Structures are given as C-alpha cells and as structure tokens.
C-alpha cells in the first residue's frame, strides 16, 4: 500500500546547521498493516510523516501510495487519500466552526461540487450516528464550536474527520501524548477500533515503548533518519520493553565502535 523508497532529505544544506533528517530510508507497508514507530527526538519520525504528506519535496527517493507515485503531488492533493493526526489537538480542527461544520469540511473530500450546500440533512444524520458510537455525548453538541471542547474530545473529532472518508493511509503523530492518561486510553481504544474495523493501513508515532509493542502488528525504530530495526511477527510477540532497550543500546554501541575505528 505504502512504499517509501530511498528517501533522503537534508535541511539547511551547506550551512553550519545542516541536518540530515532522512537518510536513504526504505519502508514498505502492506494493506491493513498497523506499524508503530519509535525513535528519540530528531530521529526523523515526524520528518518521515511530513515527507509522505508533502510538506516538502524529498531531495532523493520517492513515495508510492497504492501503486501511484505521489512524490511530486502538492500537499492538499495527497491529503485526499491520507488522514493525519497531530499531537496538538488544536491542529486538526477549526475552533470557531461547529462540530458539524468541521466534519462537513472533512467529508467534502468525498463530495465533488463546490457550490453544493456544505451540510445536508442526510450528512447531519450520518455525522450524528458516527459521533454516537464514541459515547462522549458529542452527537448532542453538533452545533457547538469546536474551540469549546476539551483536548480529548477535539482529538476524537479529528480522528473521525480524518477517517470519515476512508483514507488509504492513516498517520498518527503521537496523537494521545497531550491527553490525560484516562482520555489517552479511550482515544487509543477508539483508534484501534476504527483501524481494525476499516482495515486501515496505519503508521503511529509513539514514545511509549510498551504501547509500541502491543499496538498494531509491527514496530520500527528510527535513528538519524534511517530505520535501525523492524520487528514483526514471532519476534515481536516475545519482545519486551527491556529487550527493545537492549537492542537499542547494542545497536548504538555498534555505531560507536565503528566511529572509533574510523577515528583511530
């Protein structure tokens, strides 16, 4: 479904601040695969998402989604088939618009025609049904401005917005990190439900190693803009957080040794 081939991106090239954010990264996802992504700050996780979504063009390499090369498509065209959630619940919704207006905007991906009324009766019914299943009472507050909702509620609405038209790819960028533990758990449960039910191909960034191993079907770790390990199937089943940490320090030591050879 998604293929990132040999992706490289260097920011501020040729200046003292030069930063290699993606370094010949390769990643391939099958339809319906749910992959969690680990990595320290600056490892290139969000940069990878930005590259897939088209916030910038890659220096090298390509992004293929569902057999189509999207490497040079503008951001708004890519977002027709990509849903994305950010850590900041404020980012995905327009605060001064009501819940139903926000949903209608996301739903307009599906309905061509700029001069069609934005919200029909049928749409409203569908939004109500969709909100009802979250059991947060949002279905009775459809005419409330989103800005008045709590972070968790906003994130749930954003989740619904990015999946209301089934995306080919769902990108979750630490979307529960800014929520309190109970809400985070609830949002995560809803996420899991939606992803499984619709068999969505999903990438999720997280800093919670336990969550990374228990959620989805595959875990990758990024470091310095490349994938340093890719754990799936049997290996993943028996993996614990401490195994993961051991693997990480092992890998880091290897690199360090290589550097020492180079420098000596």
């Amino acid at each position, binding site marked *: 479904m998604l293929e990132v081939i040999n992706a490289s991106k260097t920011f501020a090239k040729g200046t003292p601040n030069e930063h290699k954010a993606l370094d010949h990264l390769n990643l391939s996802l099958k339809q319906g695969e749910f992959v969690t992504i680990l990595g320290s700050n600056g490892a290139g996780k969000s940069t990878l998402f930005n590259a897939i979504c088209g916030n910038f063009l890659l220096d090298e390499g390509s992004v293929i989604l569902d057999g189509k090369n999207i490497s040079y498509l503008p951001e*708004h065209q890519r977002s027709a088939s990509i849903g*994305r959630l950010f850590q900041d619940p404020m*980012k995905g919704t327009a*605060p001064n*618009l009501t819940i139903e207006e926000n949903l209608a*905007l996301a739903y*307009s991906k599906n309905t061509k025609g*700029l001069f*069609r009324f*934005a919200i029909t009766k049928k749409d409203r019914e569908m939004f109500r049904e969709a909100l009802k299943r979250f059991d947060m009472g949002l279905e009775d507050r459809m005419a409330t401005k989103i800005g008045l909702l709590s972070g968790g509620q906003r994130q749930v609405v954003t989740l619904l917005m990015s999946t209301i038209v089934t995306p080919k790819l769902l990108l979750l960028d630490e979307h529960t990190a800014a929520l309190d533990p109970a809400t985070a758990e609830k949002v995560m449960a809803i996420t899991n439900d939606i992803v499984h039910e619709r068999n969505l191909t999903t990438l999720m960034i997280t800093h919670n190693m336990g969550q990374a191993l228990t959620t989805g079907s595959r875990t990758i770790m990024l470091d310095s803009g490349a994938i340093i390990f890719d754990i799936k199937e049997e290996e993943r089943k028996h993996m614990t957080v401490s195994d993961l940490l051991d693997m990480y320090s092992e890998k880091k030591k290897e690199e360090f040794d290589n550097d020492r050879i180079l420098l000596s």
Partner: protein
Amino acid sequence: MTLLIGSLQLGFLYSIMVLGIYISFRILNIPDLTTEGSFTFGLAASSILTAAGHPLLGLVGALAAGALAGSVTGFLQTKLDIHPVLAGILTMSGLYSINLFVMGGASNVTLLNNDTIFTLCLKAFPFMSKDVAKLIVAVAAVVIVTVLLTIFFKTSLGLSIRATGDNADMVRASSINVDAVKMVALSISNACIAFCGGLIAQYQSFADINSGVGILVVGLASVIIGEAFFGHRSLMIGFISAIVGSIVYRYIIALATKSDMFPAYMLKLISAIIVTIALAVPAIKVKMANDRLKKNGMRESKGGR
C-alpha cells in the same frame, strides 16, 4: 430630514463595502489593503460604463473590476508569498494608475447627464420622492448582496473560506487548495467593495479618483461599531451587524458634522481613533486586570507581614 434619510441611504450603500471588509478582515482573518484601490476601481468602471452604455452594465463592470483586483492581491499573497499587508498595498498603488487610465486620464467624471440606477428607479415609480427611490435602490442592493453571501457561505466553498481563516492547516488536510480558497475569498470581498464604489458613483452622479482614500478605516470602524451591538456570533448576525455598523457610522458622522463639533476634514482622524480604541480594548482590559491583581497581591503580602 434630508440629513436623516441621506445618512440612511449612505449607510446602506456603504454597508456593501463593509460586508466586503467583514469577509476579508473577520472571516478570512487577513487585513486587506486592496480596499482603497478596488473601491475606486469600481467607481471608475461604473462611471465610464454608465456614461458609455447602461447603469446596470456599470454595476456589472464594477463587480468584475473588484473581483479582478482581489484576485491579483490573492495571487501576490499565495503564489508569490508576499506579506498580505504588503500585497494589498502593492495592488492599491498599482490601481491608482489603472483607475486614472480607466477614467481617461481625468481625475473626475460626471454622470449628471446620464441615467443611473437611481434615476431609472425614479422613472419606473414616478410617484415616489427622489429620496425614497434612492433609499429603495440602496436597500434592495444590500438585501440582494446579503442574501447571496449568506447562501454562498453555506456551500462547501463558503465553508472552506471560513475554515481557512480559522485553521488553514486543517483545510489543507481536508484536501482543499488553500491558495485557491484565499484568492476566491479576496475576489468576493473586493467585488463587494468595488460594487459599492460603483453604486456610490451612480448615487452621487460623480466619480473622483480620490474617493477611496480612507475607505478601509471607514469599513473597519463600521465592522467594529456593528460588533459593539451584536458581538461575535453566527455569520448571518455578522453580516447584519456589519450593515447596522455602517448605518450607525453614517449617523455618528452626520451628527458630528451637523453639530459643528469639528470641521468635516477631521472625519478621517475621528474614524481612525474609533478603530484604534476598539482594537485596543482587549489589550487594555488585560492590562487593567493584571494591575488589579498586582495591587491586591501587594496589599495582601503587606498585611500578612
């Protein structure tokens, strides 16, 4: 009496310009300085086309002129990435020459010997007084524009414009071309403003190259006065508040000039001061609240010692 009804006429006519400013300033959240140029552009186009053809043609021309001016500013802002304020200033300056060109190099054009939409209305209903006929045209124009705008902002495109002013990233994530949306919004906003200019030219049977000077501040003042009555609420209320603001503004001006409080040339300064005060209110409120907290805190800490 003339002053009363005259202000009402002007209030309604100028409210179309205020609606245009409401769209850019409040809905799209961009201070658009194209206004002064596009208002005169509409005025010029309307007067020339009215003189050469038909007053209705003049109004259509004014609409088209404004839409063109707005899309130029939009192009500068989005595709060339020029700061919104600067983009507006550039278009406005450029339009000064264009307007003179449209008016055949003359700094004013008179329509006294031509039919206008107002004289046509008077001819169609000869039993009405001149003032009533003018008022009816003004009110009809405002009602048509407001209804069309209200319907437009309920469509998908209209909703995209509102969302763009609120959170452009989210609009992009909904697979909508934000640049195109901004251009459309600025076109509509300036089409309203130029349409108003076109009506004013026919209303006073006269077009002057400097008619647009200070018009942006008049518009902003009207928007803000309207909001003082209605607050920030739904879009429909927003439009109505813009219209009421425009009318109240005209009465304030009429009252001030009538009572000889100050000479007519002070009007622009007064408008600027009204806008400044209105925009400063939130900051002053915060400052006052903080000062109060500080004062109470100091007193308590002294008392506790």
